[in-house]
């Protein structure tokens, strides 16, 4: 454990920029989580594995010789149907049930996904080379891969597009109506079953975009899905459901926390720090609420 970061201020800038750019990506995944949680009342443990699957789709087209950046268009399209299929197969049976049932069922799905990805893509750590080069700042003391800037830009673009779509389109309005009151929406002629399937599909598509971006900025491995689930869960409980600016801010906050934890505690404790932060946030909120004799709902 060395505190190099406090001796070199440029490292601090480096970590901050990395963290913010990474955090925007996390916020995109968390937005999908918030969407399905808010609309269907489901906590999807397989969220991270959907992300990784999306990443592997981008990696596959990279292996075919297509530039991996096209993954941000191809991957969400495929992932939308994966999500739709998953909904029809399993999720529709757990929508109205206890949340623990959905947690366990999606845990099962996560295990299946991990193992299948392990079979298909192998257990190696892979990365798709975008060959975007790097940007040097402050006399070359801060290096910023252009792929990270690209990923943050694409994330923002998609998030904004989705917000507009949710506000303006027919399906978007149906989704919001279902989230407010599923029964009333049903009475007024909304096909909630279809809305749920579409919501889960959109969530999976968001995961696909995030995964494609991760394939060029970070690394892919079949078993690293769960940290992404936990990160998005954490962002959602800090920001609340349906509060998009807060999701973006807390996503960036998480990114910053991670980069600094990486420098200060060492890389081997990075994932541990993320999970521990989740516990600390939950405990903090629990104590704050218990003063009012309430609890997290």
């Amino acid at each position, binding site marked *: 454990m060395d505190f190099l970061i406090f001796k070199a201020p440029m490292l601090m800038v480096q970590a901050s920029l990395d963290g913010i750019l990474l955090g925007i990506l996390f916020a995109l995944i968390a937005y999908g989580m918030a969407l399905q949680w808010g609309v269907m009342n489901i*906590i999807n443990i397989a969220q991270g594995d959907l992300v990784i699957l999306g990443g592997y789709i981008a990696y596959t087209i990279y292996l075919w010789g297509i530039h991996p950046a096209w993954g941000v268009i191809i991957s969400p399209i495929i992932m939308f149907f994966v999500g739709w299929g998953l909904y029809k197969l*399993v999720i529709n*049976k*757990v929508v109205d*049930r206890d*949340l*623990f*049932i959905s*947690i*366990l*069922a999606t*845990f*099962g*799905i*996560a*295990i*299946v*996904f*991990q*193992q*299948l990805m392990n*079979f298909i893509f192998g257990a190696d750590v892979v990365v798709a080379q975008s060959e975007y080069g790097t940007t040097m700042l402050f006399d070359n003391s801060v290096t910023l891969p252009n792929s990270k800037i690209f990923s943050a830009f694409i994330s923002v673009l998609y998030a904004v597009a989705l917000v507009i779509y949710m506000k303006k389109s027919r399906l978007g309005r149906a989704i919001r109506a279902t989230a407010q009151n599923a029964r009333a929406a049903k009475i007024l002629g909304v096909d909630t079953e279809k809305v749920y399937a579409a919501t889960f599909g959109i969530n999976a598509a968001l995961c696909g975009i995030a995964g494609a971006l991760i394939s060029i900025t970070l690394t892919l491995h079949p078993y690293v899905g*769960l940290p992404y689930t*936990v990160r998005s*869960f954490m962002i959602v*409980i800090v920001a609340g459901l349906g509060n998009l600016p807060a999701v973006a801010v807390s996503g960036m906050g998480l990114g910053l926390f991670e980069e600094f934890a990486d420098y200060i505690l*060492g890389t*081997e*404790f990075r*994932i*541990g720090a993320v*999970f*521990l932060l*989740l*516990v600390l946030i*939950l*405990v903090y909120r*629990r*104590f704050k609420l*218990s003063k009012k004799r309430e*609890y*997290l*709902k």
Partner: protein
Amino acid sequence: MEKVKQKDLILYSGLIILGLAAPYLFSAFKVQLTYLCVLIVLAMTWNLQGGEMGYNTFGNILFYGLGMYLTASVQVGMFFPLAEWTESGGEKTFVHTTAQYFQGIGVGLLVSAIVPAVIAGAIGYAILGLRGHYFAICTLGLGIAAGEIAGGIEIIGAGQGFTTPPFPAEIVDTEARGKFFYFLSFALLVGTFIFVKYIYGSRFKLILNAIRDNEDKAEAMGIQTMKYKIVGWMCSAFFCGLAGGIMGGLIGYIDSTDVAFDGREMGVFMVLMAILGGKGTLWGPVIGATLFHFFKEGLWTLILGWQYVALGVLIVVIVVYFPEGLMGWLREKYPERFGEVIDEKDRKAQVELK
């Protein structure tokens, strides 16, 4: 009443005789039988939380892993420098004598029971204030964080793992190691069963049920729910720690994420077994664990490589289609056998309502 007790007596003595004779009858399966005992203990203690108290935890793996590391560390640390042992295969340079080995594992198991219980008590107030799925996710995070952090600590072997002391070579009987661990785990199983059975006959169980059914009302009735929740968790931690300690000695090698804090296997198994058998019943977890173990051992080798896919599918199927478990299904089918009195008129009215 007298008759029922006699029946129980025959059942229990039969099971105990079977348990004592098992390592001689199925000599080749001693390791599997030890696993079975540990699995049943884990399922029963999980059931105290998930089934009786309604706090679905993924975090009992924390105590299991802690127990594993503690037993091995104490067993080594009592006689040799721990850091040197883990650094470069200390088991080759330092050899436990027979007496040292058994003293070490005895003290180690004692520590591995008490420390997790104390830790459960210490963090219980903070963690058990969460409810429902927040509790589930929080404990999931706790278990994984523990694994990741243990994988970064040098003195217990960090990423390369920790070899537990080998069974003393002075004992020439090749069967001795298997028997020792089997009887250890069987004793733990009997102890756990007696304890859980005692709880099932006590007021404590009713309080846990009250917490499960409606915590706010239980509190309004004057029950200090937090106190009971913490005590319940400590009980689980006690037995999970012991189970982990025995498992560590049996496996002989501790890895932070694949053996000790193995949320992907043990952590899910204990939940699955309890649900398969039927949570909230005394015998459910026992039956569930036994069935699961047979299923697993029977199929695992047939579908080599696909076992995790099968496990995932199994989880989904059980959870989605079979959430009440075997005992729940039996209860629905033969309610009289469970001492439930059903009013025919009431039942008819229910059917009509549907």
